[in-house]
Each structure stands twice: as C-alpha cells, then as structure tokens.
C-alpha cells in the first residue's frame, strides 16, 4: 500500500468519523472533535495532492457500487491540485469554526452544523477524485445539500430561508443540466466512466450541447453572471466559516468541472466555446465588482467579489480554450494555468476575508459597514489579516492576487498570436475590462477596509468590539500565510500547475518548461516579473527610509492632536465619510447600470426653512438585469401552474369527462395504429 493509498484511506475515514462525532458529542468536546477530524481529513487531502503532484503517481480506488456502474476514484494532476485547494481552505476553516461556532451553543443545532461541515468537506474531496458520472453527481448533490443545510443554520433570521431556497433552486437547475450533460457524454456507455467519455465519439452537435449544458451547470455553481443571483443571497447568511468554504472552495467546483469536461473529457472544441467562456467571465468580473461597490453589507460585498473573481478565472480559462482551438498549446496552457492559479489564490484570500468578516460579525454583531469603524484599534490582528486579504484581492504586488492577474494579463497579451484579427480583438477588450475590474476592486476594498476598520466607531457596538479568540486567529493566519507564500513563489507554483495539466488533451505540458529562476519566465508570456525581489525591495524601502531620515537628522517629534476640520470643535462619528458617500462618485459614473432609486426628505425647522431639523437620504440599487432575466420565467411558471390547478376543478362530471375523453382518444389511436 503506497503512501498515496494510505492518505486516501485517511481522507475517506476522517470525515465520516467527524460526522459521527458531531452527532454524538456535545459542547466544546463536540466542536473539538469536529474540528479535529475535519482538520485531519483536510491535511490528508493536502498531503495526497502534494504527493500526487510531486511524484505523478495516480492512485485509483474502485469498489463495486451498483450493477450498472461503480464507485470509482482516481487522482490525476487536476484532482490533486483541487485536493490541495480543498485541503488548505478546509484546514483553516475547521480550526476557525471551532471558535466561531462556540457562539452557537444552545441557539442553533451544532450537531447539524458540525456533521454537515464534514459532509461538505468529504463530498468536495470525493468529487474532485470522482472517475465516473455517478460518483461525481452524488458528491455534487451531497455538496449542494450539505451547504444548503448549513446556510439554513441561522434559520430564524429574516431572509435566511428565502436565500436558502433560491440557492437550492438554482443549484438544482444546474444539477439537472449536469445530469443531462454527463448522460449525453456517456453516449449509452452504461458505466458512465470518464474513460469511456474520453474515448466516446460524438457528433459536433452533441458536443456543443454537452458544452452548453456544462457551462450552464457549472456556471450556476460557480456563480457567473447572470446565474449568480443566489450567491449574494446565500453566502452572507451562512455561518462565516461556511461562507468562507462556500466562497473559497464550493464555487471552485464549477471551475473544476468546467476544466474536467472541456479540456479532459471533450478535449477542446471550436473557438466559440472559449469565446463564450471569456465573454461570460468578463461580464461577471465587471458586474460583480460594480455591484460589490454599492454594497454596505460586508459579507454581501465579499460575495459579489466572488462573482468578480470567478469572472477573472473564467477569463483565463476562456483565453486558454480559444488558444487551444487555434492550435496554440503553449498559450492555451498558459491561460488555463493562469485561471487555475487565480482559483487557488482566490480560495485563499477570499477565505481569509470571509473569516475576517466573520470575526468582525462575531465582535460587532452586525454586517452593516455603516455601523462599524475604528476596529483596527480594538481588534488589531483581525484588522491586519483583513488588510492583507484586501491587498491581495486588489491585486497589489507582491501578493498572490497580483501574481495570478499578471499571468492572466500575459495570457491575454498572447492574443496577438491568434491568426484572425477580428477574433483576436476580443482579447484587448478583455484586457481593458480586467484592468477596470482590478481598479474598481481596489477602490471597493479601500472602502471596505477603511469604513470597517479605520477612523471612529460609528456605533456603540463597534466601540465594545473585542479581538477574536485564538482559534479563529489561527484560522486566519493559516490563509494569510498561504496568500503571502503563493504571492512570493509563483516561479515554484506555476510549474506545478503546468505539471498538473499533464496528460490532459489539447494542452501541451511539454511546452511548459518553466525556468525555476527567481523571476518568473513563462514561455509564451511577453514579460517577466519577480515578486520576491519586489517584496524585498519594498521591505527594504519601507525599512531604510526612516533610517536614512534619522541619519539625515530629520525631526522626530510627534504630537497627537484632534483631527482638523475647518475649525469646528470635536468630532463625532456622524461627521465621517460613509460607505455610501464613498461609493457615490462611481454610482454616478455608472448610473446607467445601477438605475438607483433616490429619495431625499428634508424637514425644516417650523420657523425658518433655513434651519434644517433632519435630512433623510435613502438610495437603493435594484439589479434590473436579474429582474429582466428571472421574472418572466417565474411568471410563466406560475401562469402554467395556476392553469393546471384549474383542471382539478372539483366537479366529478368534469373528471369523468377527462376519463372518457382520454378513453376515446386512445381507442382511436389503438384502432388506427400501424
């Protein structure tokens, strides 16, 4: 039994034990066991992924499961990569959850939460290892369902149940698409094994249909626009460590599935596939960040950023697919690697941010940014981690967000290699949109961090905020370290990613010999950069400048005074710049998209209208695009439903009439059937 098999065993054993423990044990012990076994499983997953990536061996587990199929697991490079992703975030989340769920004692069912957390992790791990459709689909539904149960944890809060319903509805629609897709691919092969699908010969029409279904199914899970409606509803209401898991890992399964199907099972396709993915990605990135800007609910804001980052990932993958269809394997690999790199990066920093938001929620008790502020002094560590995450997601060097976005840019710049200019022109447009997205993301996180953590507390609750317990800090620290490491070592990560694509159709790892130099040189890219040296430079700069100043004898006195404000005395939170105000300029710029509804009510002093008693300003954004897309199907559904209801009108004669009518029709059919 090799090490890999051993790790598989551990992985498949630890999570179920965790579930059992959650159901049996109570209190701190229960939480401890849940976290412990979850952690064990997650680490086993990381180990397994690392081993497989390192040695390139492919462990296969198969046990007889159903006469017509079998329960099969197989770990290739892609699975290994996603195993690592699941494991890293999973480990952080389980540790964090130990402290976070303590607040739930006695209020909500911890048994369910703990059990479902382990079920979710298990299903995620199994899913990326699945080697046939049945295994994949079962773990897929297990994943959706456990997440659904956890979203419902705080079911007594307003909006939770509705959000959960939206989530399960959309995700099930996606599941249906996937079921059809896999059955199309298996082309009558009853074992529905992936191997069979690879070898199946399908008509172009079928392939296109399968791809479309895959994009729909995996898109709903990944939350690409316009299938993302459930995401900003469901992620915020879930317990924060679950949100981190959902936003960090669960939606990534959409990415995994898309990669698995398009480049592995279907081995690439016509250019419009890649073009579609690219376009969808661009739209999602932009819409996501734009709606995030207008959001004042910290967790909803993060959720919208998930949409944005999934968009960026899809941009990379879409570019890769296009290159692949034009027979440019090197660039194709580059694009896909860029997408995967951003996938794991987003998993880390978005997980980190959600955990941070969880600590804030834990301390302040609200998700509304307008009631926060000044937290950097009350919870410094959380603030630091959150700042790190913000820099990473804003793609600031030398953190990981920048590394992967740089790679995506490079992939898009390669677009000039596409022989048809009219097709290639989409690339620069994507470049521009991507740049705009990252700029807006930076703006959005200046808002998010600044309003939440800086300046004066805006509410008494924010004043009494306290630092999060150690376990939660540990969880955040793990991901923070991951962010920094992934940011500083692209020259080590990217080759691994390239290797993980080995053996998949249409991409050429052979062409991906990465020079393991400090500066990242990727064949096909038109530039180099070296995050570690950059970081070194920046650190040196920040460290040296004060030193130099001191040597030059600059003044070192420092006086603490009141904030200057045009001579007014004293400062109250009401004088601070609010999140709404911060976002106002951009709201005006994009008014066409937002279509905001404003109402401004001023009541004047009874004596003179030059004295204002109170001004009330309210402005709301309604995503009209979603209305456009979702209202008419729902209305159609209800119309059909109420029409069908009328059939059951209550009249016995009517019923007998149906019966006779059916009888006569069928008789006619039978009499003249040939």
């Amino acid at each position: 039994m090799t090490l890999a098999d051993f790790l598989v065993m551990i992985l498949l054993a630890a999570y179920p034990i965790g579930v059992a423990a959650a159901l049996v044990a109570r209190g701190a012990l229960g939480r401890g066991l849940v976290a412990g076994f979850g952690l064990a499983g997650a680490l086993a997953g990381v180990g397994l992924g690392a081993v497989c990536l390192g040695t390139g061996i492919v462990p296969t587990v198969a046990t007889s499961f159903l006469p017509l199929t079998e329960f099969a697991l197989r770990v290739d490079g892609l699975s290994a990569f996603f195993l690592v992703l699941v494991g890293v975030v999973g480990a952080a989340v389980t540790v964090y959850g130990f402290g976070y769920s303590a607040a739930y004692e006695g209020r909500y069912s911890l048994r369910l939460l703990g059990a479902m957390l382990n079920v979710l992790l298990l299903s995620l791990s199994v899913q990326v290892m699945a080697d046939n459709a049945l295994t994949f689909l079962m773990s897929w539904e297990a994943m959706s369902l456990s997440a659904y149960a956890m979203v419902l944890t705080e079911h007594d809060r307003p909006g939770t149940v509705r959000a959960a319903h939206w989530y399960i509805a959309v995700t099930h629609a996606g599941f249906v698409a996937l079921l059809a897709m896999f059955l199309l691919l298996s082309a009558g092969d009853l074992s529905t094994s992936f191997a069979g699908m690879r070898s199946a010969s399908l008509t172009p029409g079928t392939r296109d249909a399968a791809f479309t279904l895959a994009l729909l199914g995996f898109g709903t899970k990944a939350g690409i626009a316009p299938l993302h409606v459930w995401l900003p509803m469901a992620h915020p209401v879930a317990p924060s460590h679950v949100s981190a898991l959902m936003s960090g890992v669960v939606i990534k399964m959409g990415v995994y599935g898309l990669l698995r199907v398009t480049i592995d099972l279907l081995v690439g396709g016509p250019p419009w596939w890649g073009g579609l993915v690219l376009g969808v990605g661009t739209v999602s990135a932009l819409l996501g960040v734009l709606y995030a800007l207008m959001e004042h609910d910290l967790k909803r804001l993060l959720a919208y950023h998930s949409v944005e980052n999934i968009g960026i990932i899809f941009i990379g993958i879409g570019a890769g697919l296009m290159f692949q269809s034009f027979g440019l394997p090197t660039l194709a690999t580059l694009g896909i690697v860029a997408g995967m790199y951003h996938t794991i990066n987003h998993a880390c920093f978005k997980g980190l941010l959600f955990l941070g938001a969880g600590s804030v929620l834990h301390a302040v008790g609200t998700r509304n940014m307008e009631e926060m502020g000044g937290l950097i002094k009350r919870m410094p560590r959380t603030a630091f981690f959150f700042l790190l995450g913000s820099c990473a997601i804003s793609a600031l060097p030398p953190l990981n967000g920048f590394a992967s976005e740089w790679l995506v840019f490079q992939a898009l710049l390669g677009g000039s290699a596409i022989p048809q200019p009219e097709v290639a022109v989409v690339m620069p447009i994507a470049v521009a949109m991507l740049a705009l997205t990252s700029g807006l993301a930076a703006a959005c996180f200046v808002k998010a961090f600044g309003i939440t953590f800086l300046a004066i507390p805006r509410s008494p609750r924010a004043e009494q905020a306290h630092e999060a317990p150690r376990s939660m800090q540990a969880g955040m620290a793990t991901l923070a370290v991951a962010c920094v490491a992934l940011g500083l070592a692209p020259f080590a990560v990217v080759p691994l990613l390239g290797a993980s694509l080995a053996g998949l159709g249409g991409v050429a790892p052979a062409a991906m010999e990465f020079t393991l130099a400090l500066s990242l040189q990727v064949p096909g890219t038109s530039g180099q950069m070296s995050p570690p040296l950059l970081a070194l430079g920046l650190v040196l700069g920040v460290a040296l400048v004060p030193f130099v100043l001191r040597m030059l004898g600059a003044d070192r006195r420092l006086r603490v005074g009141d904030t200057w404000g045009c001579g007014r005395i004293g400062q109250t939170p009401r004088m601070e710049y609010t999140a709404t105000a911060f976002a106002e300029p951009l709201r005006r710029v994009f008014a066409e998209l937002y279509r905001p509804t404003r109402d401004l009510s001023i009541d004047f002093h009874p004596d003179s209208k030059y004295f204002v008693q109170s001004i009330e300003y309210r402005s709301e954004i309604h995503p009209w695009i979603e209305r456009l897309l979702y209202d008419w199907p729902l209305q159609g559904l209800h119309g059909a439903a109420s029409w069908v209801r009328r059939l059951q009108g209550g009249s016995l004669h009517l019923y007998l009439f149906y019966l006779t009518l059916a009888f006569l029709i069928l008789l006619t059919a039978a009499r003249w059937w040939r």
Partner: protein
Amino acid sequence: MDGVFSQLSVLGSSLVLLFGLILLWRRGITAYIGAFAWQSIVLAGVTVVVAYFGNDYELYWVAAGLLLLKGLVIPRLLRRMARRFTAERELEPYVNTATSLVVSGLLVLFGYAITRPLVALSQLPTRAGMPLAMGLVLVSLFVVISRKKALTQVVGFLMLENGLALLAVLGTYGIPLIVELGVFLDVLMGFLVMQIFIYQIHETFESIDVEQLNRLRH
C-alpha cells in the same frame, strides 16, 4: 338455424341498447330505474338465447344470476332509495335531451367503427351484436358524465356493466362461470357501498346532487 340465432341475438342486443337510449330521454329517477330493470331482463333473455343455441349450460346460471341480481334485487333497492329522495328529480341534466340523443348516436357509430376488427375476426353467429354492446358502453359513460344526481350516476354505472356483460356474452359466450360469479359478487358489493355513500351524502349534504360535491379542488 344459425340465422335465427343471430337474428335473435342482434334483436336482443338492440333492445338492450334501446333501453339505454330510452333512459336518455326519460326524466325522473323511477323512469331510469325502470329502463335499467327492463334492460337487465332483456340482457338475461339474450343470455338464455345464447345458452340455448350455443348449448352451454353454464350460461343458464349466468342468466339466472343476471335476472335475479340486476333485474330484481338492485332495482328494488334503487326504488327504495328513490322513494327516500322523492324530492330529487333529475330535472335538467348538463346536456338537454335532444343533444344527448345526437351525441349518443354518434357514440354508437364510433362503437361500430371501433368494433369492426372484432366482428371481422369472430366466427360466432352472435358477432353482429357486439357493436351494439360497445355502443351501450359508450352511451352509459355519457350518462354517467351528463347526469347530475348520484343515483342516476349509479344507474349509468350499472348500465355500463350491462354493456360489458353483453359484450362478453356475444363475443365469447360468457367468460368462465367461476369468474362470472366473482364479478357478480363485486357488482353487488360495489352497489351496496355506493348505496351507503349515497345515504351518507344525503345526510351530510341534505341532497344527492353531485354538483354540490366541489369542496375538494386543486
């Protein structure tokens, strides 16, 4: 010989159908019951004819059963119920008499169209009556649909069974006796249960008008 046989059987079955149609233009429950009773008696007669010419002694038993059960017992029970609900007359059905007759005529034609292959297939002298039996089945379905009172619906249902019995007799000289007995048992049980329900309806709704049974919907 066979000529007479087939003449008689066709005559009988057309009488059976005729009673069905009579029921359509008569009003009032007692009239219905009368029509049904006579129909059953004629049916029994047809069975006897088939039994005599097809010299099949089992069929005499069947005929006796028909006469006893559908010709005497059930009509009596029906009449008792009818007396109980004297106030309830089948005044206007959903479909007025003229239309009813037209529709049932069409139904009979349809029955002919349907049973063509059967007639073509069978060698029995009685085969010519089968379309009429099929017609009766369809007509009685129409009765069940178009009449409002619970009691009339029961009558329609019993006519339906008569039609099927006629079909069986003409087409196959009757299904095996043992099965036939079981069928009789079921008919009786079913009828009794329906009777119970009709009483219950009358208690709970103070009427046996089926139109009132429209609480349960959607």
